[in-house]
């Protein structure tokens, strides 16, 4: 799996979780401002990402994630890619 593939899957999971169009889930999109996600939405999205790849994302690492691109980077980092 390469980075591009991860991005596609992260965007798909996030779009589904946040109930927004996948076209809106671009790397620069900010969760709160652009995707209208509240803090619980974000926790849910993280849980979904954890399940998708069977990874563990601790809360302190979630805190720095404000955009879709950062989420992709975090998942990639967790997968060692």
């Amino acid at each position, binding site marked *: 799996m390469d980075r591009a593939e991860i991005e596609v899957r992260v965007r798909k999971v996030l779009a*589904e*979780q*946040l*109930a*927004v169009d996948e076209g809106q889930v671009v790397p620069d999109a900010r969760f709160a401002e652009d995707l209208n996600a*509240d803090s*619980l*939405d974000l926790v*849910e999205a993280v*849980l*979904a990402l954890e399940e998708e790849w069977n990874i563990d994302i601790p809360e302190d690492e979630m805190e720095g994630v404000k955009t879709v691109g950062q989420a992709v980077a975090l998942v990639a980092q967790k997968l060692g890619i």
Partner: protein
Amino acid sequence: MGSQPHPVDGADAVTKVAVVTGGSRGIGRACAEALAAGGWEVAIGYRSSDTDAKEALDAIVRAGGTGAIVRLDTLDEASAKDAFDEVTRTLGPVTGLVNNAGYSQDGLMLKYPMDAFDRTMDTNVRGAFLCGRVALRSMLRARWGRIVNVSSAVALRANAGQTAYAASKTALVGLTKSLAREVGSKGITVNAVCPGLVDTDMTSHLTDDARAIYLEQTPIGRTGSLQEVANVVRFLMSEEASYVNGAVIPVDGGLTA
């Protein structure tokens, strides 16, 4: 997930699978039976006695309900996770939780053993926190859920000799209200019941004097039955209680009135 509408006319759209911690005896067992009668598939969580748990399940099955028993030590994070996984496999995703498992040991604070304090807080508060956290995952996914925390009348009207127990049960009230605010927008309600003097193993140690004092302060003038507590829990877990959230409901014959 977020695009799914909330169920409009009841929980029919989601699986109704409830876990009752400490469900093999006392109030927990009564809740398990009442929920099963109300259409829930009920997982009876037990820590030590699978004999009691099996008996409770038999009663449910005899009454035409369905359920399962599951070993669930609420003090142990891994056990809680495993238990909910097992319930999900056998009955389906959990959308109901009754945090009933409790520990009580009376004693004056000056002489109270700290290990008993820890056990009280760990069982009554940490256990509810832990199980709630595990259960919330599937409730969020279902966009529907019901959590009832079994607190106690001592959270509202304390007694000497129960500092640890009262502190733990009051903590459950705080947990209930805060969580109700966290997840209320997701179709999940979180409420607490505060039973007064109910005849259970946990109250069987009371001296006749202590019992008489309780009864004197209880306008209805008698102890409550397990069923009378379970009735309220069953309601709070039902779709009918859909606008009751963060409520702390005494079921105490007026003890705290």
